[in-house]
């Protein structure tokens, strides 16, 4: 046999092997990796997962598919080796001190996106509580909560009581809101256990606690459908406000609290003895995919910022938000550092 024929056969076999390997990889059922995702970024991650799965990514010869499951912090923090998912995109690294030591969460990406807290309040009510020169932030809201009824602000008795909307403390944004309250009280960039546990803070916080309305269901929906009759002001994430602007238009006034929290959406892998190298590599590939420019560009559509706080000012969502006081460039504010676990527990219990 001639040498050239042998070379031809050799390369032919390599080509056939590659084609066969690819055929085997794509015809086999994919390895499905379940990623729990905080509700705040679920829509963005789900869309990205569809694009990722459509690529037929193969890792170590196996096709990989990502299945996205919406989960809250409380659910993810309760995982056990039998109930766990493969990965978790949490709302914030603020929760790291609360991880159970037996939970082998390992960060794959420190931050995939970002959002911050923003006050929203119905115009008339914000005007009423800021008429003495206070800015629309915790101090003004606390003073209004102390007053208790709108009748005492000179409004009709039908307006009822002063009501504040805060997400439940068991959620990332609810916990962040309570940190913002505590930091605003002490005017510090960290929340200290002795401050949260002090009598003076309890007295300051008591009217706020009483003012928290309990719609039992989604705050944004309650605000949009039941309006000022139910909740007068609420502290929610910028992303929630921005993606619901059409429901409120100019009826609401927005303001960034001076003491704020970065919700930075870290990506963790549950990395224990049962986690295979393929799973690790696959989740890493998905994390990398989420950080690609084309996926990052989509963040603004969901009212989210890029890691570090930058927003795409040319995006329609942020452009619309600018008319109502939102800013692509975050205004000056103090970001609160992560408290230790004991302090975190005290903060979460503030509303109990």
């Amino acid at each position: 046999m001639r040498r050239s024929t042998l070379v031809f056969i050799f390369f032919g076999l390599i080509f056939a092997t590659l084609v066969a390997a690819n055929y085997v990889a794509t015809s086999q059922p994919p390895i499905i990796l379940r990623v729990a995702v905080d509700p705040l970024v679920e829509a963005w991650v789900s869309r990205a997962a569809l694009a990722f799965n459509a690529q037929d990514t193969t890792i170590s010869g196996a096709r990989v598919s990502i299945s996205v499951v919406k989960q809250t912090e409380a659910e993810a923090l309760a995982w056990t080796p039998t109930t766990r998912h493969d990965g978790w995109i949490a709302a914030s690294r603020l929760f790291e001190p609360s991880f159970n030591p037996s939970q082998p969460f390992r960060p794959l990406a420190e931050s995939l996106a970002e959002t911050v807290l923003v006050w929203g309040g119905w115009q008339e009510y914000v005007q009423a509580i800021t008429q003495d020169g206070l800015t629309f932030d915790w101090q003004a809201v606390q003073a209004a909560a102390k007053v208790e009824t709108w009748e005492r602000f000179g409004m009709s008795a039908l307006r009822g009581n002063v009501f504040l909307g805060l997400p439940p403390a068991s959620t990332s944004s609810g916990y962040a809101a309570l940190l913002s309250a505590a930091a605003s009280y002490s005017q510090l960039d960290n929340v200290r256990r002795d401050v949260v546990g002090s009598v003076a803070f309890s007295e300051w916080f008591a009217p706020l606690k009483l003012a928290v309305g309990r719609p039992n269901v989604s705050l944004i929906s309650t605000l949009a459908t039941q309006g000022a009759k139910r909740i007068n002001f609420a502290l929610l994430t910028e992303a929630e406000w921005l993606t619901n602007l059409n429901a409120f238009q100019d009826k609401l006034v927005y303001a960034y609290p001076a003491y704020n929290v970065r919700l930075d959406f870290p990506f963790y892998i549950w990395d224990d003895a049962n986690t295979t190298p393929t799973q690790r590599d696959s989740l890493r590939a998905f994390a990398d995919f989420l950080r690609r420019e084309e996926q990052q560009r989509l963040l603004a559509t969901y009212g989210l910022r890029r890691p570090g706080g930058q927003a795409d000012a040319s995006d329609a969502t942020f452009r619309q938000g600018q008319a109502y006081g939102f800013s692509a460039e975050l205004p000056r504010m103090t970001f609160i550092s992560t408290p230790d676990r004991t302090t975190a527990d005290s903060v979460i219990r503030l509303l109990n």
Partner: protein
Amino acid sequence: MLRRRLFLGMALALVGLSLTACDGGGSSGDNNTGQSAPANAIEISIIYAPESADYMKTIIPAFNDSFARGVNPVTGQRLASGERPIFVTGRDGSSGTIMQAIVNAVTAPTAENVERPTIFQPSVSHWLALANHLTRRELFNLAEIIPTANAPVVMAIWESRLRAIQQTVGYEDIGWEELLMVFDAPNGWQDFGLPNARRTVFYGHTDPFVSSTGLSTLIATYYAAARKDGFTGRRLTLDVVEDEDVRAGVRRIESLIRHYSRRTTEFKNYIAQGPSYLDFVALEENDLIAINRGLTEYQPPERLVALYPKEGTFYHEHPFGIVNANWVSDEQRAAARVFADYVLLPEQQKLIMSFGFRPVTPGVELGFPFEEQFGVTVEGPKALLDVPDPAVIVAIQNSWEFVKKTADILLLIDVSGSMAQEGRLEQAKIGALAFLDRLDSNNRVGLSVFSDTVRPIVPLGQLESNKAELQNAIRNLRPEGGTALYDGLVETIQVMNAEGQSDRIRAVLLLSDGEDTQSTRYRLDDVERIIRETRNDLNPVIVVPIGYGTLSDSLIRVLQRIANASNTTWQSGDPSNITRVLELISSFF
């Protein structure tokens, strides 16, 4: 003749409807679409509030159908390789009954009433918080409860009545305060510019243990009574609920009651009979819209309008609560969220709105049928109330026995010889005993029978003390002789009248299988007259006639005339359903 047939048809339809709706007070219909789950599907179940049945019958099959075609109905994308389809089955059930059944599944799994759905959609989120409270665990994660359709609780009142109040008081915002002003006026509605209207104010609401509307209404009346008493706090507390002055205020509002009912399904039909039956009734806004759109059995004689009480009301959010129990897997939980996302899509929200619910998805504009012609306003309630703690809600439910309007009920049973046929009397006895068991013990009950003559057997007395005597007397009834229906009825009403005016509901429950053959003292005209004479009393005598067995046309005419005289409807019963008929009537008290 045509009118008679029409009325008969309507009456029978009402009874039929009532009996269907009353079926155990719980589940009443499978959403059996004939679909079957695709291979490898994640199967989830939902039990939804009865008023959601209309739209769920469309939404569930459309959701299933999309997955069966290999398309995720939320994303609109084809299912990825390995992605499992979801298949939903659903049926309706009364919120209170299903909440208790889910609680039982956790705390008393061998109980009779047990349900294990993946999703529970009551009318209002109070029930989910209550379930957590009763099981002492987070059966529903309140942080992730998803509202799916909004409907405020309103007082559905005849437009002429509402305008009369507004014109008399000179302002628009009306609430319990003004309704009580009518009640307190010496000549009732006549003092409010309605010269032909009766003196009494008649109101109705449902059972707060079963019905969301009943529960929200009772909580709202506590708020109204507390505010009247000077309470300015944001939400009711145990101290406020237990305050005797507040309870007295709630009793005053309850004094407007004509009668209660188990579920709004029945009240929608009762109120549609017109102002002579009830002045206003607590309903969800969508029910009011349905009546005004002519979607109920009865066509109301004038327009009902929504009175959004100025003291405040609640929105019923028809929330999806995903059950956190061992019968729901993580996969099912995730699938339930996908179904919730589907229900929140603008297209589904518009469908839900077409049934009279306000959309919950921000940005979905309010449109048809939220129009003035259907008795509602776009802006809805004037004031809204905050949900009290579950422990306070339980205290309010438990107070019901002490604040509700009690009743004097005289059972008048036909024991003529014909009642021996087809086991009629024996079944009637079973029904009457079940009726007694369903009544609260603070009602007063008596028993009379008639055949050739009238015989009072057990005088009117507190059920707490005379129940055993009544039970014995019922068990010992024997059929004999003819039918002195008119004498029996007149003498029983006279017994009721002899008790004097009271603040209680006064009712005579007549059960008869045949026309009058033996009355010597009174005729049908006398029966009608004596009933009508009580019409302007604060609590007129209500006669609820039950035609029993095979009914002749002439007996139906008689029962109809008796019912008309006290603005009630006659009921139809036979040995197979008499227990259910009587249980339904027991929910009036």
